[in-house]
């Protein structure tokens, strides 16, 4: 593979679970690869992975082997479609969800060796504010936070951003509002969140886009396919393409 590209590492988090991180990340990866970019999707939910499930993969090797046996991540890579690669993680392995400082550093070091092969590296983190979530967010050059109009999702997204600002002095956050009824609702949620972030943390987040409520999303999850591939004309697919174009621009 061609190395030393100018790789952009993007971490996608939400705080709360079930907000649509994995679904969005998979579709963003598909959209970027459709635009001829080489994309690596890292399943950052190291102990309870879902990326492989959502893509219908039957993986043989996972990042657990990198951490425990020192296996080269390049040997674990799974190519989903031209230009779209996945680094799957293990599921039902509590030890992987609580890596020690040294293990996490070793994993990051192993990943550092391969990221230069890609234009984009997307990290789909676990829910919550566990060490791996914070670690991946700190590692990434760009942080996307997904939230929905629910109070719980907003609180958890805010809490995650607050931790990243307080502990790691991260200030640039990009918000995606998922599962909205309308663009107006998305704007209201963004403006509200943006006001609170600015008032209390001095952070001005960037509006990355919104994804509307769409039955195509639910159907694609059941089909274990990206909705962008299963139903490219669906409203959610168009929204992801819009976000993809924004990232590329």
């Amino acid at each position, binding site marked *: 593979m061609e190395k030393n590209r100018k790789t952009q590492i993007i971490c996608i988090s939400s705080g709360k679970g079930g907000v649509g991180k994995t679904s969005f990340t998979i579709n963003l990866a598909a959209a970027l690869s459709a635009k001829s970019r080489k994309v690596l999707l890292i399943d950052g939910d190291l102990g309870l992975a879902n990326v492989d499930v959502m893509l219908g993969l039957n993986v043989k090797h996972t990042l657990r082997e990198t951490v425990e046996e020192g296996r080269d991540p390049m040997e674990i890579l799974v190519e989903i479609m031209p230009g779209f690669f996945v680094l799957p993680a293990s599921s039902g392995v509590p030890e992987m969800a609580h890596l020690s400082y040294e293990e996490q550093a070793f994993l990051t070091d192993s990943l550092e060796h391969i990221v230069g092969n890609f234009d984009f590296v997307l990290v789909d983190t676990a829910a919550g504010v566990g060490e791996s979530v914070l670690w991946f967010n700190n590692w990434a050059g760009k942080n996307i936070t997904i939230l929905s109009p629910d109070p719980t999702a*907003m609180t958890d997204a805010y809490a995650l951003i607050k931790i990243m600002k*307080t*502990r790691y002095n991260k200030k640039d956050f990009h918000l995606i509002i998922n599962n909205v009824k309308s663009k107006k609702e998305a704007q*209201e949620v963004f*403006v*509200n969140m943006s006001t609170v972030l600015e*008032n*209390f943390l001095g952070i001005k987040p960037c509006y990355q886009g919104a994804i509307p409520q769409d039955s195509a999303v639910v159907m694609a999850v059941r089909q274990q396919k990206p909705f962008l591939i299963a139903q490219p004309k669906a409203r959610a697919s168009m929204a992801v393409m819009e976000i993809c174009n924004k990232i590329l621009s």
Partner: protein
Amino acid sequence: MVKVKNQQRAKNFSDFLQLIEDEAIRFPVELIPVAEQTSAVAQAVLLLDRTLSAKRKRELARAVTAGCPSETKREQHIALLDRAGALTWAENFQDCVHAELARVKKSRLPCSLLLIRVAGTGERSFLQQAAATLKKEIEGDHHLAHFDHATLALLLPGLNRNRALRQAGAIHQSLSAAITVRVTIGLAVCMARAVPAADEFMAMALQELRKAEYETGDIFYSFHQQDDDACQVTAEERVQLFSFLSRGKKE
């Protein structure tokens, strides 16, 4: 594993054990000479992780000594090294603190450091008296050392703020009963979320000790409470976060 320098200096097994002890004192290990019950001469030595519980240490020691030859038909016993006159000094103690802080990062368990100052004239003898009193009180995984001519340092692995404060209170009470001079204590607590360097951690405890010396109250402590709370989402933030929902309801 403890690497023994200058092995050739050891003329006999006793010398060799002494060399091991000299090296081991720099590490967070408990050195346990193993001797036959009828003899005071050590025949082997166990080095056990100091942070293990006393129960676990006993289990390990029993398991190891169970493998000793039984032809002698004499029961083996474990004699803990009496460190009454041989406390480590600050420079070696700093290595222990460093190792302990690394363990905090890994195990996510807190650790606390007490600096106990014995004031007044004739401090040296008071200090020895205090050390002897403390030795009876501390548990197996605690580490006691000299900090300076008038101060003892006590490292308490696994102890959080509340437990360390209770321990400091108990120590203060027993030392005040045993010796007639004023006893002041500075306490620093290290949590896994914010592990300082060893010298910083010791400086934190020292700063608290100075406060205790010059202010009223004999025990002062420092704790990363603010760092923790700084990330907490406050009630005010929540009110503003949810304000758009109430606006939507009104509309």
